[in-house]
Protein backbone atom coordinates (compact mmCIF):
# COMPACT_ATOMS: atom_id res chain seq x y z
CA UNK A 1 0.00 0.00 0.00
CA UNK A 2 1.30 3.40 -0.90
CA UNK A 3 0.37 6.74 0.63
CA UNK A 4 1.43 9.52 -1.64
CA UNK A 5 0.81 13.11 -2.60
CA UNK A 6 -2.16 13.94 -4.73
CA UNK A 7 -2.40 13.32 -8.45
CA UNK A 8 -4.39 15.17 -11.10
CA UNK A 9 -6.63 12.11 -11.55
CA UNK A 10 -8.14 12.54 -8.10
CA UNK A 11 -7.80 16.28 -7.70
CA UNK A 12 -10.75 18.44 -6.70
CA UNK A 13 -11.93 21.27 -4.52
CA UNK A 14 -11.10 20.81 -0.86
CA UNK A 15 -8.45 18.21 -1.55
CA UNK A 16 -6.34 17.50 1.52
CA UNK A 17 -3.70 15.64 -0.47
CA UNK A 18 -4.37 12.45 1.50
CA UNK A 19 -4.32 9.74 -1.12
CA UNK A 20 -3.85 6.02 -0.67
CA UNK A 21 -3.41 3.77 -3.67
CA UNK A 22 -3.65 -0.02 -3.51
CA UNK A 23 -3.08 -2.65 -6.16
CA UNK A 24 -4.70 -5.96 -5.30
CA UNK A 25 -4.90 -9.45 -6.82
CA UNK A 26 -8.25 -10.51 -8.23
CA UNK A 27 -8.84 -13.26 -5.65
CA UNK A 28 -11.86 -13.48 -3.31
CA UNK A 29 -9.61 -14.13 -0.29
CA UNK A 30 -8.24 -10.61 -0.70
CA UNK A 31 -11.60 -9.15 0.32
CA UNK A 32 -10.75 -9.52 4.03
CA UNK A 33 -7.67 -7.36 3.52
CA UNK A 34 -9.64 -4.78 1.60
CA UNK A 35 -12.31 -4.61 4.30
CA UNK A 36 -9.65 -4.00 6.95
CA UNK A 37 -8.13 -1.20 4.84
CA UNK A 38 -11.56 0.34 4.26
CA UNK A 39 -12.23 0.32 8.00
CA UNK A 40 -8.95 2.07 8.76
CA UNK A 41 -9.57 4.71 6.12
CA UNK A 42 -13.12 5.25 7.40
CA UNK A 43 -11.66 5.76 10.88
CA UNK A 44 -9.13 8.20 9.46
CA UNK A 45 -11.99 10.13 7.85
CA UNK A 46 -13.75 10.36 11.24
CA UNK A 47 -16.72 8.28 10.08
CA UNK A 48 -19.22 6.70 12.46
CA UNK A 49 -19.38 2.91 12.85
CA UNK A 50 -22.44 2.74 10.60
CA UNK A 51 -20.80 4.84 7.89
CA UNK A 52 -17.69 2.67 8.01
CA UNK A 53 -19.85 -0.43 7.52
CA UNK A 54 -21.50 1.23 4.51
CA UNK A 55 -18.09 2.14 3.10
CA UNK A 56 -16.90 -1.45 3.55
CA UNK A 57 -20.02 -2.82 1.86
CA UNK A 58 -19.68 -0.50 -1.16
CA UNK A 59 -15.97 -1.23 -1.67
CA UNK A 60 -16.42 -4.94 -1.03
CA UNK A 61 -19.29 -5.29 -3.52
CA UNK A 62 -17.57 -3.20 -6.19
CA UNK A 63 -14.39 -5.30 -5.84
CA UNK A 64 -16.37 -8.53 -5.83
CA UNK A 65 -17.99 -7.50 -9.13
CA UNK A 66 -14.55 -6.96 -10.67
CA UNK A 67 -13.34 -10.38 -9.46
CA UNK A 68 -16.48 -12.30 -10.40
CA UNK A 69 -17.84 -10.57 -13.49
CA UNK A 70 -14.82 -8.66 -14.79
CA UNK A 71 -11.90 -11.02 -14.35
CA UNK A 72 -14.03 -14.17 -13.85
CA UNK A 73 -11.93 -15.34 -10.88
CA UNK A 74 -8.63 -15.08 -12.74
CA UNK A 75 -6.30 -14.49 -9.76
CA UNK A 76 -3.41 -13.50 -12.03
CA UNK A 77 -5.24 -10.23 -12.77
CA UNK A 78 -5.04 -7.14 -10.60
CA UNK A 79 -7.14 -4.09 -9.97
CA UNK A 80 -6.45 -0.78 -8.31
CA UNK A 81 -8.17 1.27 -5.62
CA UNK A 82 -7.43 4.94 -5.02
CA UNK A 83 -8.75 6.46 -1.79
CA UNK A 84 -8.79 10.25 -1.78
CA UNK A 85 -9.69 11.86 1.53
CA UNK A 86 -11.04 15.34 0.80
CA UNK A 87 -12.29 18.15 2.99
CA UNK A 88 -15.94 17.16 2.82
CA UNK A 89 -15.88 13.66 1.36
CA UNK A 90 -14.07 10.43 0.76
CA UNK A 91 -13.70 9.42 -2.87
CA UNK A 92 -12.78 5.89 -3.84
CA UNK A 93 -11.90 5.01 -7.44
CA UNK A 94 -11.72 1.37 -8.49
CA UNK A 95 -9.91 0.73 -11.75
CA UNK A 96 -9.63 -2.51 -13.70
CA UNK A 97 -8.82 -3.65 -17.22
CA UNK A 98 -11.51 -6.27 -17.63
CA UNK A 99 -14.17 -6.15 -20.33
CA UNK A 100 -16.56 -3.27 -19.64
CA UNK A 101 -19.30 -4.40 -17.27
CA UNK A 102 -22.01 -2.18 -15.89
CA UNK A 103 -24.65 -4.18 -14.05
CA UNK A 104 -27.80 -2.31 -13.11
CA UNK A 105 -29.13 -2.24 -9.56
CA UNK A 106 -32.40 -3.94 -8.66
CA UNK A 107 -34.90 -2.35 -6.32
CA UNK A 108 -35.74 -5.23 -4.05
CA UNK A 109 -35.67 -9.00 -3.65
CA UNK A 110 -38.27 -11.30 -2.27
CA UNK A 111 -38.33 -14.99 -1.57
CA UNK A 112 -40.53 -15.86 -4.56
CA UNK A 113 -38.85 -14.07 -7.42
CA UNK A 114 -35.56 -15.30 -8.92
CA UNK A 115 -32.30 -13.57 -8.06
CA UNK A 116 -31.49 -11.72 -11.26
CA UNK A 117 -28.10 -10.40 -10.23
CA UNK A 118 -27.51 -6.80 -9.32
CA UNK A 119 -27.97 -7.21 -5.55
CA UNK A 120 -24.37 -6.17 -4.98
CA UNK A 121 -24.85 -3.15 -7.23
CA UNK A 122 -27.99 -2.16 -5.32
CA UNK A 123 -26.02 -2.35 -2.08
CA UNK A 124 -23.32 -0.08 -3.53
CA UNK A 125 -25.90 2.54 -4.56
CA UNK A 126 -27.52 2.50 -1.12
CA UNK A 127 -24.28 2.50 0.85
CA UNK A 128 -22.60 5.57 -0.69
CA UNK A 129 -23.81 8.98 -1.87
CA UNK A 130 -22.53 8.92 -5.47
CA UNK A 131 -21.67 6.13 -7.89
CA UNK A 132 -20.23 6.90 -11.34
CA UNK A 133 -19.00 4.43 -13.91
CA UNK A 134 -16.78 5.44 -16.83
CA UNK A 135 -14.25 4.02 -19.26
CA UNK A 136 -10.89 5.80 -19.47
CA UNK A 137 -9.18 6.74 -22.76
CA UNK A 138 -6.89 3.76 -22.32
CA UNK A 139 -9.91 1.47 -21.99
CA UNK A 140 -9.86 0.84 -18.22
CA UNK A 141 -13.09 0.62 -16.25
CA UNK A 142 -13.37 3.23 -13.53
CA UNK A 143 -15.96 3.15 -10.77
CA UNK A 144 -16.01 6.24 -8.58
CA UNK A 145 -17.69 6.04 -5.18
CA UNK A 146 -18.24 9.12 -3.01
CA UNK A 147 -19.21 9.25 0.65
CA UNK A 148 -19.88 12.74 1.96
CA UNK A 149 -18.78 13.69 5.46
CA UNK A 150 -20.84 15.83 7.79
CA UNK A 151 -19.38 18.56 10.01
CA UNK A 152 -19.29 16.09 12.90
CA UNK A 153 -17.09 13.64 11.01
CA UNK A 154 -14.74 16.42 9.88
CA UNK A 155 -14.35 17.45 13.55
CA UNK A 156 -13.72 13.79 14.49
CA UNK A 157 -11.01 13.67 11.85
CA UNK A 158 -9.41 16.87 13.11
CA UNK A 159 -9.38 15.34 16.60
CA UNK A 160 -7.74 12.16 15.27
CA UNK A 161 -5.07 14.24 13.53
CA UNK A 162 -4.49 16.39 16.64
CA UNK A 163 -4.14 13.48 19.06
CA UNK A 164 -2.51 11.08 16.63
CA UNK A 165 -4.98 8.31 17.59
Amino acid at each position, binding site marked *: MEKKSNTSRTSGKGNLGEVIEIKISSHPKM*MRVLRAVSEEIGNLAGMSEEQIIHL*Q*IAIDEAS*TNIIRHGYKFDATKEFKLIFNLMEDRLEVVLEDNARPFKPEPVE*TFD*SDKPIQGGL*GVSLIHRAVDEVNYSVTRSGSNQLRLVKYLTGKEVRNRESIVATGE
Partner: protein
Amino acid sequence: MKVSLRRVNDSITVIDLEGDFDLYSSPKARETLLQLAKEKVPAVIINLEKVGYMDSSGIATLIEALRAMNKYGGKMVLSGLNMKTMEVIKLARLEKIFEIQENEEQAIASVKSQAR
Protein backbone atom coordinates in the same frame (compact mmCIF):
# COMPACT_ATOMS: atom_id res chain seq x y z
CA MET B 1 -15.40 -20.35 7.10
CA LYS B 2 -16.33 -23.07 9.57
CA VAL B 3 -19.72 -24.69 9.06
CA SER B 4 -21.07 -27.12 11.66
CA LEU B 5 -24.42 -28.69 12.47
CA ARG B 6 -26.22 -29.42 15.74
CA ARG B 7 -29.52 -31.25 16.11
CA VAL B 8 -31.60 -29.61 18.86
CA ASN B 9 -34.38 -32.22 18.45
CA ASP B 10 -36.02 -34.19 15.63
CA SER B 11 -37.37 -31.08 13.96
CA ILE B 12 -34.81 -28.32 14.68
CA THR B 13 -31.26 -28.18 13.34
CA VAL B 14 -28.84 -25.37 14.12
CA ILE B 15 -26.16 -24.50 11.60
CA ASP B 16 -23.24 -22.61 13.15
CA LEU B 17 -21.28 -20.38 10.78
CA GLU B 18 -17.92 -18.95 11.80
CA GLY B 19 -15.85 -16.43 9.84
CA ASP B 20 -16.76 -14.11 6.99
CA PHE B 21 -19.77 -15.14 4.88
CA ASP B 22 -18.64 -13.81 1.50
CA LEU B 23 -17.78 -14.66 -2.10
CA TYR B 24 -14.87 -16.81 -0.92
CA SER B 25 -16.72 -18.83 1.70
CA SER B 26 -20.40 -18.83 0.76
CA PRO B 27 -20.22 -21.98 -1.47
CA LYS B 28 -19.44 -24.09 1.62
CA ALA B 29 -22.44 -22.76 3.57
CA ARG B 30 -24.63 -23.05 0.46
CA GLU B 31 -23.81 -26.73 0.06
CA THR B 32 -24.75 -27.49 3.68
CA LEU B 33 -27.95 -25.43 3.61
CA LEU B 34 -29.18 -26.96 0.36
CA GLN B 35 -28.41 -30.44 1.70
CA LEU B 36 -30.61 -29.69 4.76
CA ALA B 37 -33.35 -28.53 2.39
CA LYS B 38 -32.95 -31.72 0.36
CA GLU B 39 -33.42 -33.73 3.57
CA LYS B 40 -36.52 -31.62 4.25
CA VAL B 41 -35.40 -30.68 7.74
CA PRO B 42 -38.48 -29.05 9.33
CA ALA B 43 -36.67 -26.05 10.89
CA VAL B 44 -33.17 -24.65 10.41
CA ILE B 45 -31.69 -21.97 12.63
CA ILE B 46 -28.70 -20.24 11.09
CA ASN B 47 -26.50 -19.03 13.92
CA LEU B 48 -24.54 -15.99 12.65
CA GLU B 49 -23.10 -15.06 16.05
CA LYS B 50 -19.53 -15.74 14.87
CA VAL B 51 -19.91 -14.24 11.40
CA GLY B 52 -17.97 -11.00 11.25
CA TYR B 53 -19.08 -9.88 7.80
CA MET B 54 -21.61 -10.89 5.17
CA ASP B 55 -21.70 -9.73 1.54
CA SER B 56 -24.24 -10.10 -1.27
CA SER B 57 -23.01 -13.67 -1.97
CA GLY B 58 -23.93 -14.57 1.62
CA ILE B 59 -27.31 -12.93 1.24
CA ALA B 60 -27.94 -14.70 -2.08
CA THR B 61 -27.12 -18.01 -0.36
CA LEU B 62 -29.62 -17.27 2.41
CA ILE B 63 -32.33 -16.35 -0.13
CA GLU B 64 -31.69 -19.55 -2.08
CA ALA B 65 -31.89 -21.65 1.11
CA LEU B 66 -35.07 -19.86 2.23
CA ARG B 67 -36.73 -20.59 -1.11
CA ALA B 68 -35.68 -24.23 -1.02
CA MET B 69 -37.10 -24.64 2.51
CA ASN B 70 -40.31 -22.73 1.73
CA LYS B 71 -41.05 -25.23 -1.02
CA TYR B 72 -41.68 -28.05 1.46
CA GLY B 73 -43.01 -25.86 4.26
CA GLY B 74 -39.73 -25.78 6.20
CA LYS B 75 -38.76 -22.87 8.43
CA MET B 76 -35.52 -20.92 8.39
CA VAL B 77 -34.58 -18.49 11.15
CA LEU B 78 -31.49 -16.27 11.41
CA SER B 79 -30.02 -15.56 14.84
CA GLY B 80 -27.09 -13.78 16.45
CA LEU B 81 -26.59 -11.05 13.85
CA ASN B 82 -24.13 -8.31 14.72
CA MET B 83 -24.27 -4.68 13.55
CA LYS B 84 -22.41 -5.42 10.30
CA THR B 85 -24.45 -8.44 9.22
CA MET B 86 -27.72 -6.73 10.21
CA GLU B 87 -26.77 -3.58 8.29
CA VAL B 88 -26.18 -5.46 5.04
CA ILE B 89 -29.58 -7.17 5.37
CA LYS B 90 -31.21 -3.78 6.01
CA LEU B 91 -29.46 -2.20 3.02
CA ALA B 92 -30.71 -5.11 0.88
CA ARG B 93 -34.20 -4.40 2.31
CA LEU B 94 -34.61 -8.02 3.34
CA GLU B 95 -35.23 -7.67 7.06
CA LYS B 96 -38.89 -8.56 6.52
CA ILE B 97 -38.17 -11.47 4.20
CA PHE B 98 -36.08 -13.35 6.77
CA GLU B 99 -37.22 -14.24 10.26
CA ILE B 100 -34.54 -12.74 12.47
CA GLN B 101 -34.19 -13.49 16.19
CA GLU B 102 -31.68 -11.96 18.57
CA ASN B 103 -30.17 -15.24 19.72
CA GLU B 104 -30.43 -18.99 19.36
CA GLU B 105 -32.63 -19.39 22.44
CA GLN B 106 -35.21 -16.99 21.04
CA ALA B 107 -34.99 -18.61 17.62
CA ILE B 108 -35.74 -22.04 19.13
CA ALA B 109 -38.62 -20.59 21.16
CA SER B 110 -40.03 -18.98 18.01
CA VAL B 111 -39.87 -22.22 16.02
CA LYS B 112 -41.51 -24.18 18.86
CA SER B 113 -44.31 -21.63 19.29
CA GLN B 114 -45.12 -21.73 15.58
CA ALA B 115 -45.17 -25.52 15.57
CA ARG B 116 -47.98 -25.59 18.13
